[in-house]
Structures are given as structure tokens and as C-alpha cells.
């Protein structure tokens, strides 16, 4: 933090040298000085990236092949961590849950915001109100959201079952049932994160030129045909981008299962990240945790690379 401030006293040299040509060797020294100055600005950020991004990424791969407990010297074990983790019954459960969670989140959390944005975009009144209200849950801390829904899902006096009773519908076990727990968590995640998606879709919908709809309507396209042949192709880029983003985000889900279900019932909601957490902090098995991390890293790296490629495709930097 103070690093940048210490550079201030070295200023005016640069300017003076514009007037008087430097003696031989002076230019080189000046270039060195420029470099030193540039790095003085850069160094703080660079150290943080090196320590907390680059080094951990390398270390994850290294520890994945080691028997590692903090405090004792690491021991190379080859692929033993991977095979041990692989044969853990929770491993299959965690990956299955994570994939099902992601698929359900795509089905539920993807179609609903799109339809909602389509409808909102047609409304001419109270626009600011809708935007604020839909984004409100995003601003509630995720832990509070999770605790709130845990309370709603309570099989006894929870709001979810009370509503069903009020409507004379059969009640559900929600997050306490092995078959309903995962979808219950998807509902929470969708409720909490929908706001951002809806706002991004709204912005995309507003950038569609009105002539396209005009022309389609003159050609006799019905409402659904206009959605199918104008809206969706015109927002294809944003749809794809958000889909990738959502896959990346939901595959790292942790707070909801940790707070609401604790991974249960019967491992029905253990996710990969939760399992990583368990390996590290419950089993004190950092080798296993890193082996799992590397697997998640490789899988999500593919989606992230696709996402980056997509968002940067129109840009020229770097």
C-alpha cells in the first residue's frame, strides 16, 4: 500500500532530460529508472496475484500428488490421492449431485428469468419498481437467504408447507427428503440469483432494433414466431454467455448445502466443493482435497475458457 507513495520524490529528472540530451549511458539509465518506476506501481498487485492466485494454482496440482498435512513434510504418493478419492462413495454422490444441481438450475433458473425478462420488457409502467424488487434478493447475504429458506422448508410450521396446506395441496419434505432436497436447493439458488440474470436479459432485449419486430409482424409472424425468429436469435450471444456463467457458478455451489442441509439427507446434497471442504477440514486430508480441486479445476476450466473466448471475441486488447 505504501509502496506507491514512496516513489514520489524522484520526479523531475524525466522532464529535464527532454531539454538536455543525456550523456552516453544516460539513456540506458533513464530506461532503467522508467522500469523501476513502472514496477514500483505494479509490485503490490503482482505480489498478491503471485501469492494468492498463481502459487495456489500450482500448489493444488503439486499437493494432489502428495500426502500432505500442515506442519509435517510432504510425501510423494503418486496418484494415490486420486484413486482414494475416486473410491469414496461420497465421490459419486457429490459429482452426481453437482451435475444434477447444475442441470436443474439450468432448466429452472434459466427459462424462468428469460420469460420474466420478456414479459417485463413489454410492461410500460413501474419499470424501476420491477428492477429493484427482482434484484433485492441478490443483495441479501447468501447466508441469510439460506437460513431464511431453511426456515421456510421446515416440515412443521414452515411457510412452504403452510402455503401448500392453504392451497389444499399435499405437503412435501422439502430439504429433508432425499428426493426433494436437491430441487429445494435449486429453488433457493434461483430465487437468490435471478435478479442479475433478469437485468442482463432486459438490457439485451432493449438493444434489439424495433424494425425487426415491425418487419416480422408485417410478414405475418405471430407473437411466438416473433420470439422464436427475432428475440432468441438476437439475444443468442447473451443467452450463451449467461448459460456458461451459470454452469461455472452452480458447479461451485457450497453455501446452500452447507447451511440448509449439511449435505444430507443421506448425502443427497453433498456437492463437489462441499466434499473438498470435508476432505480438508474434517478429514485433514489435504492431498485428497487438492486432488478433488484439480478435477473441478480441469472441468470448469473448459467452461471458463469458452466463456472468456466468447466475451472477448469482439475485443482487440492484449
Amino acid at each position: 500500500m505504501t509502496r506507491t507513495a514512496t516513489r514520489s520524490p524522484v520526479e523531475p529528472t524525466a522532464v529535464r532530460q527532454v531539454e538536455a540530451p543525456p550523456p552516453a549511458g544516460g539513456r540506458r539509465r533513464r530506461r532503467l529508472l522508467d522500469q523501476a518506476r513502472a514496477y514500483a506501481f505494479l509490485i503490490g498487485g503482482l505480489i498478491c496475484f503471485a501469492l494468492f492466485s498463481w502459487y495456489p494454482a500450482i500448489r493444488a496440482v503439486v499437493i494432489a500428488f502428495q500426502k500432505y498435512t500442515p506442519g509435517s513434510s510432504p510425501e510423494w504418493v503418486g496418484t494415490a490421492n486420486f484413486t482414494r478419492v475416486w473410491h469414496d462413495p461420497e465421490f459419486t454422490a457429490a459429482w452426481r449431485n453437482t451435475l444434477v444441481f447444475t442441470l436443474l438450475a439450468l432448466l429452472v433458473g434459466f427459462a424462468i428469468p428469460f420469460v420474466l425478462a420478456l414479459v417485463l420488457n413489454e410492461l410500460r409502467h413501474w419499470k424501476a419498481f420491477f428492477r429493484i424488487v427482482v434484484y433485492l434478493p441478490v443483495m441479501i447475504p447468501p447466508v441469510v437467504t439460506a437460513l431464511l429458506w431453511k426456515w421456510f422448508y421446515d416440515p412443521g410450521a414452515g411457510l412452504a408447507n403452510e402455503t401448500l396446506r392453504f392451497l389444499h395441496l399435499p405437503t412435501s419434505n422439502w430439504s429433508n427428503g432425499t428426493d426433494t432436497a436437491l430441487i429445494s436447493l435449486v429453488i433457493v439458488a434461483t430465487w437468490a440469483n435471478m435478479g442479475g440474470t433478469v437485468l442482463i436479459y432486459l438490457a439485451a432485449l432493449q438493444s434489439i432494433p424495433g424494425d425487426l419486430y415491425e418487419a416480422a409482424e408485417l410478414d405475418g409472424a405471430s407473437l411466438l414466431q416473433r420470439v422464436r425468429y427475432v428475440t432468441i436469435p438476437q439475444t443468442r450471444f447473451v443467452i450463451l454467455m449467461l448459460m456458461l456463467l451459470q454452469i461455472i457458478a452452480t458447479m461451485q455451489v457450497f453455501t446452500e448445502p452447507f447451511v440448509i442441509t449439511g449435505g444430507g439427507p443421506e448425502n443427497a446434497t453433498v456437492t463437489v466443493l462441499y466434499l473438498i471442504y470435508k476432505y480438508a477440514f474434517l478429514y485433514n486430508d489435504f492431498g485428497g482435497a487438492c486432488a478433488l480441486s484439480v478435477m473441478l479445476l480441469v472441468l470448469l476450466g473448459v467452461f471458463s475458457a469458452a466463456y472468456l473466448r466468447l466475451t472477448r471475441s469482439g475485443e482487440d486488447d492484449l
Partner: protein
Amino acid sequence: MTTRTLLSPATLARPRGKAVYWTVFTGVVVLFALAFLFPVYWMVTGAMKSPDEIARTPPTVIPTHWHLSGYTDAWDLMQLPEHLWNTVVQAAGAWAFQLVLCTAAAYALSKLKPAFGKLILGGILATLMVPAQALVVPKYLTVADLPLIHTSLLNDPLGIWLPAVANAFNLYLLKRFFDQLPRDVLEAAEIDGAGKLRILWSIVLPMSRPVLGVVSIFALVAVWQDFLWPLMVFSDTDKQPISVALVQLSQNIQLTVLIAAMVIASIPMVAMFLVFQRHIIAGISAGSTKG
């Protein structure tokens, strides 16, 4: 600026169009009220019910007796002032570190032409491909025992502050903004004898207010909302931010008190959103549609 959308103004002007429009409008208002506002209402009023009333079936929509004791108990019993203060310190520090170090680094990468600058930028952008949560365990080990100096940042706000700086997204945002600043202005300042720091401070930063605002909001929200990382860093109960403390305390506390604490924990971010909603919503809408 009424650009036409899916429906033409003519369709909406017809009697049938009007009827359908107002039906849909009412439906959406009711849906939004039930889906997004009602849960929040339920939480705020739930904390004011008595412990008996909150367990009652069917539940009461409006508390029969309003108690504020849930809120006062939460404030005292759960040591909320302490945990809120911890969160404020963590968020403010992360924001300050990020703003100072990321701005300086972005300025260097954008304007000062450091050797290997492109390589460094490439390395920073490459971290965007690494999903943050997948790296928490090795990051935890690094923070627990920093290489070379062998100190631990566990239970230390620095364990939140310094890793927050390694935010490639914010740094890239700043760098791109600096790239767009007109060269002439900076060169003119240099000829007038301003040093690099002076140029950054008196010219670049004042011109960068919009992007600094966006980065600030992102930085604050990210730390305030985070759960997994502070859960790992702070095992010491007294130093935990409110998110971690809530979960740790949720087991052994009366429901009304817990709910009151949840409301209190939500107030700062929701208040910030209501104050800055125009900017936040504009930022989200603008940030993603380019390309």
C-alpha cells in the same frame, strides 16, 4: 425513447390489447410481491413475533403482538455489534487494498510500459479461467503459512484483504478504462513536469470516477456476501464476520432471535443497494451486453 418491442403500440392500444396488458401487469405485480417482497416481509415480521406465535400453525400473517425484543436480544446475545464491526473492517480493508493496489498495477500496465507487461497481463487474465472456489484449499494453505516469511494470516483481517487484491476482473476493468484515456492529456501533464504518481492522482483518477465507483461496489459486495473463505480464515469466534457467525450460532439460538439477526445482517447491503440502485442496475446492465 419508446423503441418498439415484441408488441406493437397499435396492438396495445386496442381494447383487447389494453385488457390483456393490464391483466398481465397486475399478475406480474402480484407475482413479484409474493415471490420477492413477501419472504422479506415474513422475515422482518417473523422476528417480531413471540416464540410461541412463530411456531403456530396456521401461521399469523400479521403478528398479534409486536415485540422488538427479538431484535434487541439478537443485538446483545449474539454479539452482533462485534461481528458487524468485523465485517465492516474486512470489507473496508479489502476495498481499500483493492483500490490502491489494483489501480496502481492497472495504471502501470496501461501507461508505464513495464518490461514483460504483456506477459504479466496475460498471467492475470489467465486467472479468470480458474474458478475461484476450486482453489480455496491451496489458497488456505498459503494463507496459513506464507511462503518465505512463514507467517500465518489466519484469524487476521489481512487474510481477507490481501487475497482480495488478486481480482483479475477488477484489475482488467481498470486497465481497460485507463487505456481509453487520451494520451495527449497525460503527455501534456508530463511536459508540465508532473511525475507518474502526480499524473495518476490528479489526472487519471479524477477522470476515472465511474469505473472506480463500479469497482468499489463490486469489491464491497463481494466481501460482505462471501461465506466460504471467511469460514476458513476465521476459526476464532470473536473475529468472525456476521455471515460466518450467523451460521455458527444458528444451532443454539431461539428462532425469533436468529431471524432478527438475519434481518440486521441484511440491512447494510440492502440499504446500500437502495441508495445506489440506479448505478448498480446500470452497471449490471451495461457490463454484460457489450461484445
